């Protein structure tokens, strides 16, 4: 069984290596062989993901039958510390593996169509496979060290994929921003690992969790360790204040956004907190921090999402907001609810992103101002997008309703204020996603081709062709359909009336499972009402034909009214509460200034000066020594005479 675990992440990893090495070799040959390689690369990569998925499902079933599966191999020693390479499958990890592999496979499939003809397609799929392998390793690891290695690997491959169109300065900058921002969080996680291994002497989950319960970490560390772990989650899962990288990360290809920034990598932070739950349970103050940050992020991001005019940015802020929901649930003592929402969110958010990808691929544009009326031309995309949107908005029977309800339910007992916050955020969620749907798919088509398409594959199509946008091919539509089906069905895995099979399966934290989990009826009504109000409000502002008038500046419908009445406040929110500008001023500028100063003074003056001085010294000395060689015989004779005198003097002992 251990071999199965290794294969789950090993197969995609080998695919990556194969594509990199093979790509390097074949690309040099060029010609028809290279073309064939490029078209095969995607299928090879998708095949690897499919194998991983199959094995993950197999592992899941095996776990259900036999219980925990584990693999443990000696890796290396440092002094007294032994660091093993260990993997395992339990309820939580099995579910995560299936989700990751499943979404990854569908994204691979979608990418084959989306990235067709792109110059670097072989590298793209190599990086995609690398990410898949790293993420799977992350969820399968059984000790913190392997987790951290996979964590970093995930970050690195995310950087590679975000900066895929690296020749665009914006894309390159976005990749750097993502990496550096998550780095800040990663440092926290690293420090937490130091403390953990320092106090417990081991990285193994079981050992550490047993320790956390009794005797626990010393003094202030008991709260600090989970908070430091949470810092890593804040970075990877884009919670406030480290969320600023996610909207920029939309520079990467859309399938990448679907995989990484909707369903998997950002979920890693949530997974980390859930997996390390015993650490948090030992320090209730830490749980409160998680909860408050999650709730704040959920509301903040939802408000920003309402003001965005780029499809992908709306979805990006939506992701930040939904992750906030998950964190709130974790902090409120209901980790199963958080994971349940992670589960459903992975499917419908990936669906929404891929749907956006379909739109972008067909039209070459991604701003709502330039889109419209696509439902007629791309019905399949439209319907599946609607399914995803309904799931996000929390309308029953779609998946999002069930999981969101669980989260709200966890707040009823002790945190009514936060419940109100999340309800408000849910209202905004329904509103902005409906708004997006109406603006993109309904109404009249935008007149004429818009400005230069910004994005790789569409530029091959040159934007709209003579017949206008058309529905995407089978390779892109099949994943959309499958995900749409998942968006409907996924909710039932954890629905209350079906006995919450998923949550029982996860077996996380005893305290939470012990609580009676009945959702008050009034809450269900409130949740559904909020969803309907949001969608209805959006219809009123954007869906009605009358409302779709374009104001000056190109704002559509309700946006125009908002912009006019709120003025500066509107643009303040639209720019993410100008947090990027704040960071640039407070952090980036001082660092750059210091860096520049050091570059000029230390590097330029001191080091270069020393080296150049040293280098110049040699010819100068050489020049001086050169003067001895006059070429004159008598000078040399004189030198010999002097030498002879010295020898005589030595012989006479004059120097002793």
């Amino acid at each position, binding site marked *: 069984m251990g071999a199965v675990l290794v294969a789950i992440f090993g197969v995609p990893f080998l695919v990556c290596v194969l594509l990199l090495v093979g790509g390097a070799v074949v690309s040099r040959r060029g010609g028809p062989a290279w073309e064939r390689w490029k078209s095969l690369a995607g299928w090879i990569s998708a095949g690897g993901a499919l194998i991983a998925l199959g094995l993950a499902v197999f592992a899941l079933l095996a776990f259900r039958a036999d219980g925990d599966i584990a693999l443990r191999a000696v890796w290396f020693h440092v002094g007294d510390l032994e660091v093993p390479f260990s993997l395992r499958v339990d309820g939580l990890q099995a579910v995560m593996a299936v989700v990751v592999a499943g979404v990854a496979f569908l994204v691979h499939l979608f990418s084959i169509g989306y990235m067709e003809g792109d110059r670097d397609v072989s590298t793209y799929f190599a990086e995609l496979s690398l990410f898949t392998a790293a993420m799977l390793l992350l969820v399968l690891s059984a000790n913190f060290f392997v987790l951290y290695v996979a964590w970093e690997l995930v970050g690195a491959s995310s950087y590679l994929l975000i900066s895929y169109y690296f020749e665009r300065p914006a894309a390159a900058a976005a990749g750097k921003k993502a990496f550096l921002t998550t780095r800040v969080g990663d440092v926290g996680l690293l420090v937490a690992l130091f403390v953990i291994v320092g106090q417990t002497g081991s990285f193994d989950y079981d050992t550490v969790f047993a320790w956390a319960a009794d005797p626990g970490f010393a003094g202030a560390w008991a709260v600090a360790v989970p908070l430091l772990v949470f810092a890593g989650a804040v970075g990877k899962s884009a919670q406030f204040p480290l969320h600023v990288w996610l909207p920029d990360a939309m520079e990467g290809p859309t399938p990448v956004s679907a995989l990484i920034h909707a369903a998997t990598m950002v979920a890693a932070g949530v997974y980390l907190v859930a997996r390390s739950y015993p650490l948090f349970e030992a320090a209730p103050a830490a749980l409160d921090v998680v909860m408050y940050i999650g709730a704040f992020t959920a509301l903040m991001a939802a408000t920003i999402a309402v003001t965005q005019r780029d499809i992908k940015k709306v979805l990006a802020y939506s992701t930040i907001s939904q992750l906030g929901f998950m964190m709130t649930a974790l902090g409120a003592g209901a980790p199963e609810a958080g994971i349940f929402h992670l589960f459903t969110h992975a499917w419908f958010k990936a669906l929404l992103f891929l749907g956006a990808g379909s739109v972008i691929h067909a039209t070459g544009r991604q701003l709502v101002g330039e889109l419209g009326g696509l439902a007629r031309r791309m019905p399949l995309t439209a319907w599946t997008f609607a399914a995803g949107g309904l799931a996000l908005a929390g309308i029953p029977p779609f998946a999002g309703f069930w999981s969101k309800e669980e989260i709200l339910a966890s707040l009823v007992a002790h945190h009514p204020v936060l419940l109100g916050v999340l309800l408000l955020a849910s209202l905004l969620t329904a509103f902005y996603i409906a708004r997006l749907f109406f603006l993109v798919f309904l109404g009249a088509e935008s007149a004429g081709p818009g400005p230069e398409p910004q994005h790789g594959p569409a530029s091959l199509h040159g934007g709209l062709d003579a017949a206008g946008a058309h529905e995407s091919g089978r390779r892109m539509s099949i994943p959309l359909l499958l995900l749409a089906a998942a968006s409907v069905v996924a909710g039932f895995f954890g629905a209350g009336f079906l006995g919450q099979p998923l949550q029982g399966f996860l077996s996380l934290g005893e305290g939470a499972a012990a609580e009676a989990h009945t959702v008050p009826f009034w809450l269900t009504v409130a949740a559904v009402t909020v969803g309907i109000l949001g969608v209805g409000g959006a219809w009123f502002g954007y869906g009605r034909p009358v409302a779709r008038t374009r104001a000056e500046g190109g704002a559509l419908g309700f946006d125009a009214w908002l912009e006019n009445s709120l003025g500066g406040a509107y643009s303040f929110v639209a720019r993410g509460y100008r947090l990027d500008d704040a960071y640039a001023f407070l952090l980036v500028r001082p660092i750059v200034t210091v860096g520049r100063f050091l570059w000029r003074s230390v590097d330029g003056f001191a080091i270069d000066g020393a080296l150049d001085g040293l280098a110049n010294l040699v010819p100068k000395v050489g020049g001086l020594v050169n003067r001895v060689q006059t070429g004159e015989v*008598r000078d040399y004779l*004189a030198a010999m*005479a*002097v030498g*002879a*005198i010295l020898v*005589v*003097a030595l*012989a*006479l002992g004059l120097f002793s």
Partner: protein
Amino acid sequence: MDTQEVLFVAFGGVAVLGALYAVATRSLLRAIVALGAFLTAIAGEFYLLAADFIAVVQIFVYVGGIVVLMLFALMLSASGKRHPLAAVDRPALGAVLAYAVGAGLLWATWSTELPAAGPDPADALGSLGRALLGAQLWPFELIGLILLASVIAALSIVRGERQ
């Protein structure tokens, strides 16, 4: 002072004077002739030092060979006429260094206890012959080779450019 010492001083004086003139004069021809005088005086010194065979060899090789060779070279290089060049150039440096060397050697000579000279061998020539063909055979043969090599060398150097 006995006869030997008087003669020694006399020959020595000639040698020194000859050397001085050879070193200082402007005319190359006169320098070479002075050299000849010097070499002869030295031969006399050799004789007084119980090295009569060396003295004879000195006359043959040096005076009869090398001095003549120099005269020929002088003739072939047409540098015998009085040059506008100063005969002596940079005398200060030369004087200082020469003085230092000489002083050093003299000081060494006069500050050491030299053992007395042993009795002269009865058959000087015979001893020399036995040494050359006995203990010092190797150097004796090698000198032959060196002479051969230098003859060939001199010939090829002089001939070399005419190819």
